């Protein structure tokens, strides 16, 4: 039940942001709000199993604090990744050395692993290809620095693992 209510509130907030049911004059657009309540209820009934949104975890302020600290770190890595791709693309010889390496993560929950895979994809030279159930990630690396699992894990995974463990795990 808590999960359903969490999904309902989250979908209603997204609806409000998209439909923006209040005008400059301060009036409410009741038509839009009623339709939004109906749509959010429908999503909560149908998709509450698909979206694992646990309110107790979601509302924990400590997690939000670490998420706010993690955001600039993530944006920094994202910009570095873009400059790296720019350098490779503009270099006349195209100095790439691609390969797929295997790395291990100690994150357990699905949400945390998804966030880790997405973070890896948006950071310099790496793209997650697959995640196995027992915690291994296959990562396509544009400029392979080491094919060994331990060294690759240190270079690719460990800069995010600590953060994501505090935020989502």
């Amino acid at each position: 039940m808590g999960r359903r209510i969490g999904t309902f509130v989250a979908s209603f907030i997204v609806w409000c942001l998209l439909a923006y049911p209040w005008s400059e004059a301060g009036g409410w657009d009741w038509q839009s709000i009623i339709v939004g309540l109906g749509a959010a209820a429908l999503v909560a009934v149908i998709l509450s199993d698909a979206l694992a949104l646990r309110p107790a975890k979601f509302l924990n302020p400590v997690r939000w604090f670490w998420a706010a600290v993690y955001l600039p770190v993530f944006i920094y890595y994202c910009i570095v990744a873009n400059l790296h791709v720019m350098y490779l693309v503009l270099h006349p010889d195209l100095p790439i050395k691609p390969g797929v390496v295997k790395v291990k993560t100690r994150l357990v929950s699905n949400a945390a692993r998804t966030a880790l895979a997405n973070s890896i994809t948006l950071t310099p030279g790496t793209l997650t290809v697959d995640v196995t159930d027992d915690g291994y990630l296959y990562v396509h690396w544009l400029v392979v620095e080491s094919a060994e699992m331990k060294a690759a894990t240190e270079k690719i995974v460990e800069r995010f693992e600590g953060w994501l463990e505090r935020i989502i795990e």
Partner: protein
Amino acid sequence: MNEVIGFIIIAVGLVFDLFGCIGLVRMPNVYTRLQAATKCVTLGTCSILFGVLCITGFGPTGVKALVCLVFVAITSPTAAHAIARGSHKFGIHVHKDAVTDKYAEEIDDPSVVSSGSNDQEEGETL
């Protein structure tokens, strides 16, 4: 003032998008192209949307841009991941002088790996 900052951010985003497109043309195969496309186009598009937010402020348009920014940032790497996994399952090889391919060694059917040396041309045309 906000408008000037917003237009600068939009211009930076367009430059990132441009380099993503150049990467899409210059890179040799599907995985390296995905790398260029995902990284540059995600940050480029997010910058454009953030620039829109700076210009319009937290009004109806700006909030929509913010929501779109979050969704693009979440879905774009997920889609790239799905395409990469699909191409690997389809049998496209990483590169003709790839350093290592642990995925092919451990997950794929061994016969696909051994017969794959001439598949590289196919991978390049995709």
